[in-house]
């Protein structure tokens, strides 16, 4: 009697497990499909845009060569280094801003604290590019829009200047660090600056990495501000608007497959970075959600 029940249980379990695995395989396939499509099209030999078939008839690496060889209007390698420079500069600057503000709001007590936190919350609710026209004219007034390089500096300023408003996640993380360590350090005569630099920062690796990555990714995917600030200056485009330009009417016929090669090229470093730091990412986020 008992064994029979067990065996029917295990059959049932086998059936559910099979269904689950088949289901996962189907869903996973759907998730992989667009990525496979990008890779396949990037290797397609036939130029032009849409084809009446899916699998390319012949394969080539020419699209990748085309991406880097072309020094005409669309200069991919230049865009790549523009974006890399902007991303590195703005991620360092924003991480610095975010950590400073998060630490102050989490650990220091002063009169305006609650008020400032509420103001930050309120400012975060305006659509970020609502004010971009004014930002544009302020940058113009400051003389940032006169040369291409300066436009890239302006882009760094735009990405990082307001970044400190996103301090909430880092603050949530600092809130979970025990206060007793700080107090022990004060007894030993440390100033608050010492505590910040020598104790809090070294303990906050997950959230620092999380902040760095989020702000590093920003310039690679931002479309609006880059478009407004860089305008028609194609030499100083970032990757996102550069690739978007390739899909515009005047370029799409010739650049369609090259566009996908560009997508693959920039996805590789970002994917590696992301997979490598996934652990930090999850830790950082769940630190904020606790409680």
């Amino acid at each position, binding site marked *: 009697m008992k064994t029979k029940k067990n065996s029917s249980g295990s059959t049932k379990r086998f059936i559910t497990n099979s269904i*689950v695995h088949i289901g996962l395989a189907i869903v996973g396939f759907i998730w992989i499909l667009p990525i496979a499509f990008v890779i396949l099209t990037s290797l397609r030999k036939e130029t032009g845009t849409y084809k009446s078939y899916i699998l390319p008839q012949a394969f080539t690496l020419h699209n990748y060569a085309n991406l880097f060889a072309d020094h005409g209007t669309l200069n991919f390698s230049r865009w790549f280094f523009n974006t890399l420079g902007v991303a590195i500069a703005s991620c360092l600057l924003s991480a610095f*801003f975010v950590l400073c503000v998060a630490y102050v709001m989490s650990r220091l007590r*002063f009169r305006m604290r609650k008020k400032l936190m509420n103001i930050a919350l309120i400012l975060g609710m305006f659509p970020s590019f609502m004010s971009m026209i004014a930002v544009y004219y302020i940058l113009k007034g400051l003389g940032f829009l006169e040369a291409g390089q300066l436009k890239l500096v302006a882009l760094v300023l735009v990405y990082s200047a307001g970044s400190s408003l996103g301090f909430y996640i880092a603050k949530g993380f600092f809130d979970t660090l025990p206060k007793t360590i700080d107090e022990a350090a004060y007894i030993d005569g440390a100033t608050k600056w010492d505590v910040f630099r020598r104790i809090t920062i070294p303990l906050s690796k997950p959230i620092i990495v999380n902040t760095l990555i989020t702000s590093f990714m920003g310039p690679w995917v931002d479309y609006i501000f880059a478009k407004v600030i860089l305008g028609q200056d194609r030499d100083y485009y970032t990757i996102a608007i550069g690739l*978007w330009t390739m899909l515009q009417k005047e370029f799409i016929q010739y650049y369609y497959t090259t566009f996908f090669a560009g997508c693959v090229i920039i996805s590789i470093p970002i994917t590696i970075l992301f997979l490598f730091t996934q652990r930090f990412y999850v830790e950082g986020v769940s630190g904020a959600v606790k409680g």
Partner: protein
Amino acid sequence: MAGKKQKISDKPVHGIGFGTAFKSGNAITKLSAVVFGLGNILHKQIIRGFIYLALEVAYLYYMLSFGTKAIQNLITLGTKTQEEVFNEAKQIYEYVVGDNSMLCLLYGVITIFVTLLFIAILTSSVKSAYETQKRMEEGKPIPRFIDDLRSLGHEKLHNSLLLFPIVGVICFTIIPLVFNILIAFTNYDKDHQPPGNLFDWVGFDNFVAMFKTGGILAKTFWPIFEWTIIWAIFATFSCYILGMLLALVINREGTRYKGFWRFIFVLSIAVPQFVSLLTMSTIFNASGPLNVILKDMGIISAGTTIPFLTNPTLAKVTIILVNIWIGVPYTMLSTTGILSNIPKDLYEAAKVDGANAIVTFFKITLPYMLFVTTPSLITAFVGNINNFNVIFLLTGGGPASIEYYNAGKTDLLVTWLYKLTLTNKDYNIGAVIGIIIFVILATLSLLTYRHTGSYKDEEAFQ
């Protein structure tokens, strides 16, 4: 308990406000409101005093040379239009530069902020003078300049750490925002573009036009508003629930190769969003691969295509489906850790009571997850109302509609705002929409945010 603790630690470090300092200060302290830093200079704090004085002189110079005019211009928004004048000597028409309303407004706003800064320095000067006066009377040592500098690393660390972030936020967020809010009360549209034309204050006219029944703006606004809310609800909850289910399925006991499954789904997050979105827009294109597959499989006949992105209703469905593709792995990743924290005995108790998987999900998993992740759910909802990328890169707001004012059937409020400001140069209407979005989000999040644990008990884990 936590609330009580906070009350004590939130007490101001030096409790003197400007009012008490001014009232109970002596003549020198009172004079410090006129001659900044006087109290400091007379009490041996020479450097500190002169810094105050220099700031005052700088402000006065700014106001005399530039500021007063800027404030006047802010009120009139310029009076002189650019004109063509015939130059007799050269025998040509020349442009005489007029006022530029846009710059008048911008400089006016900047001057207001400079003045606010000046008032802050004024109060700080009086307070500083009062503090020094108190110390003199009580015979305490007067801090030297070097002590002031040192305190920036300890008691006043918040000032030093906040300086640069706050300057950045004021210059690139607050001033532009105030400027743009003011634009909502002007007629700065495509017919009033400086420097050729001036624009002027119009009060609440734009808001009235936006909500006037039967007007073209109201006819555009309400459907777009409705779709924005529907989109935000569907996008947030579909990703949330499906992502959580995926995490549960992958993490359940019987599932093998957990790492592999997770990798497959995480891969799609790692691909930059605009790449996947632009790819999706080609995949769903009328002559794109999905239609090709459907034809090859014989599901649709050779001559027809399914208008995934060009039929209004179908486009909305496609957008939500694509968003699921993008968002589900995200939720899966961030909920995996929290799911494993749910106490196991809850599930065992449910099993003993004979509950099946569906019942346990709705009675145990979902309530627990909602309890823990409400803040991030609100953030996701707000993010979706402002989700520019998905709409703009997938459909560009299209299919276009002649019933709407410069908007398409799938436009959200934000993408409409973008089109109005960048393509159409109707800055005033754009600003009105921005304010409306803000009002929606502000009421929504302040109501819910204040009730979450992480807002109330921020020191619970310290």
